[in-house]
């Protein structure tokens, strides 16, 4: 993508660029925003709002190349519909958290859905499907990294760095993503299982060549989704047993998990996201838990002291995020001192004046 001549640069680029330059000269913090579907996530958004939605549209999509390139303001729903027409999908199944969620926010938040911990082909988060991007850095300079090909090791892998950086390293202008064919067959099974039984089974199945593409445990019930070739799904259905969930109900269930519209996520009680090794023991914390990703992602509704939650997750080898919380001061796990230094220096490379999304990823910048 870096060398591809942009025949006509849309005026939306000039607009974003001017906004960043003027913010840079006035040292004015900017709050980058698409539809605002992820306003709740990370530190409290601060600064003058820079709406990215005018910079929208799919720039390139060739199904046989498995690559889609689109502008940041493009609605995720539009991208997914376009891919579906050609039997393809974003394998990382990004949560939208709103009808108008944009590609820019999807990449900046770095959040991935139930299929993230899939066995085999579909494994991976947003970052794993990032092939390239064009950004506006904090000086209003346009930079291109990566490209539109599957394999590319020229220079440092800066495009993957943008996934999950919460817009603190640049305004993401365009993104090239690897896309994949939709599975030929899909089925969802339901089992009764205690938390420990669910963790044991999921870790055992993860080590077998089974087409498990999603899992969710809550309150004594384990749901497992199988996706792949028809023959693979059929033989897994025979091997695993359990109760087959009807297709409509299964679709609705997984959307509920992805979009957090499932009953577990209702209400205002603090929601923690604990990312930890799938084999970690059950977290001994008060409150209710919801397990995804084969055990590697655990949602917790709990009023326990934040430090108690963080310490328990750290001991289990992971990190906790205050995902939905009234207190936005420090949503993410604090960094180790060496990491802190590297983060500050990298931030200074791409946004030396500290004007892009201050406080959203780190309380100090």
């Amino acid at each position, binding site marked *: 993508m870096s060398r591809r001549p942009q025949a006509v640069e849309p005026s939306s680029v000039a607009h974003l660029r001017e906004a960043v330059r003027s913010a840079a000269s006035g040292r004015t913090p900017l709050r980058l925003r698409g539809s605002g579907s992820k306003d709740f996530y990370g530190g409290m958004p601060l600064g003058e709002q820079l709406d990215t939605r005018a910079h929208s549209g799919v720039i390139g999509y060739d199904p046989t190349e498995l690559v889609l390139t689109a502008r940041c303001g493009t609605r995720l729903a539009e991208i997914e519909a376009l891919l579906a027409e050609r039997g393809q999908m974003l394998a990382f199944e990004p949560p939208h958290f709103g009808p108008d969620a944009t590609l820019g926010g999807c990449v900046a938040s770095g959040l991935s859905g139930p299929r993230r911990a899939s066995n085999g082909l579909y494994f991976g988060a947003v970052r794993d499907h990032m092939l390239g991007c064009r950004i506006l850095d904090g000086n209003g300079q346009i930079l291109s990294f990566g490209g539109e090909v599957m394999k590319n090791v020229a220079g440092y892998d800066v495009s*993957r760095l943008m996934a*999950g950086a919460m817009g603190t390293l640049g305004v993401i202008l365009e993104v090239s993503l690897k896309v994949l064919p939709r599975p030929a067959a899909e089925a969802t099974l339901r089992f009764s299982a205690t938390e420990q039984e669910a963790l044991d089974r999921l870790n055992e199945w993860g080590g077998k060549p089974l087409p498990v593409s999603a899992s969710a445990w809550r309150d004594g019930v384990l749901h497992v989704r199988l996706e792949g070739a028809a023959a693979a799904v059929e033989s897994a259905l025979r091997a695993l047993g359990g109760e087959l969930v009807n297709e409509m109900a299964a679709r609705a269930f997984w959307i509920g998990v992805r979009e957090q519209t499932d009953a577990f996520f209702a209400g205002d009680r603090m929601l923690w996201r604990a990312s930890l090794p799938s084999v970690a023991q059950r977290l001994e914390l008060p409150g209710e838990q919801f397990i995804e990703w084969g055990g590697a992602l655990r949602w917790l509704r709990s009023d326990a002291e934040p430090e108690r939650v963080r310490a328990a997750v750290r001991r289990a080898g992971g990190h906790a995020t205050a995902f939905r919380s009234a207190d936005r001061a420090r949503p993410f796990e604090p960094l180790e001192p060496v990491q802190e230094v590297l983060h500050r*220096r990298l931030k200074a490379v791409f946004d030396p004046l500290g004007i892009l999304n201050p406080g959203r990823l780190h309380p100090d910048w």
Partner: protein
Amino acid sequence: MVVALPETEPQVASILKVCHAMQVPVVPRGAGTGLSGGALPSGHGVLLGMAKFNRILAIDARARLARVQPGVRNAAISEAAAPLGLYYAPDPSSQIACTIGGNLAENSGGVHCLKYGLTVHNVLRLRGYTVEGEPVQFGSEALDSPGFDLLALAIGSEGMLAVTVEASVRLVPKPHTARVIMASFDDVETAGNAVADVIAAGIIPAGLEMMDKPATHAVEEFVHAGYDLDAAAILLCESDGTSEEVEEEIGRMKAVLSASGATQLRVSGNESERVRFWAGRKAAFPAVGRISPDYYCMDGTIPRKRLGEILRFIAEMELKYGLRCPNVFHAGDGNLHPLILFDANDPGQLQRTESFAAEVLEKCVAVGGTITGEHGVGIEKINQMCVQFGSAELEAFMQVKRAFDPSMLLNPGKNVPTLHRCAEYGRMHVRGGQLPFADLPRF
């Protein structure tokens, strides 16, 4: 030059601390199988040989991961995990010799990475030391970590950001079975289009490789893989999974390949035949080494639909430079490995080869691709970096390097050219006056 062969982590830390205090360059090195000079020693520095860090520390079957030291060979991980029905997926052709440390440095791929990913998709955590000798960890054994994705940044960074002493890599379940189709085509472009047709049919083969006629001829003499020597190009398309699944997918792929103009299809009848079909592909480089005193391997990646154009261009370059160039191609992901045959003892041939290669890589960039898919920039392709990137991006890379290594001591001079070097190469790209302080006299 000093060569250090540390055996313990405190030794690695001490070496780095001493070198940092004395401002001496340090070049980490694994098995030295790299193809871009990424581990080339510095004449005025310390070569940090990691060969003694060769232990597999743990294979955790339940967590499906291996904790390994960087000097462990790629294939040794899969061998150790095999009794558990697991393996480490990235399989560069040099996997019997190359080490995981080098794989991390170059973000190595292999013939199965279309389906199973590159090194970056299969590593959870790196532990190592900064240039100052401070311990540092990127990633974790969870699926993500707080802050920036420094793990992704470190992988493929050619040993320039930190020194790795341990990695946690993912192990994945070994498929029940695998079979491979060998499809013959009487025209290279038809074979290229067949690849697009397979993908368009919604199939992601476990492996999808192409070799042209000169390459199959070189290989056949060496390993007797049973390739069709009359074909202008052959494709190897692998399916893996349960036996029913493989049966179904092989059937679908055969139908697509026939419809796309394959002149002959052969399906491996058993595991030894499958291994033999692959052995030919994996031995392509040594096989070519037998038919030519020297060869030079390229590593460009292109959007697959531009394959015909690139192959025609390579044919023109063969005439222009008077050198032959067989092609092996990771067709599924667009990664080309043309091999220029030459004789370094013949004055001028090396220089012609290098010019040939430079033109091909620049053509890859021109069609929307990259100068390196999996071998890295190292020192070899450093001039072509000036073609692929503008000065603003090169400057950003340089600053990323400085964020980790302010005095530029770790593997200096690799991967990212100075703007000065680009100017000398005649490829200083300044887009729209975007060079910082564009009016300052320089160089």
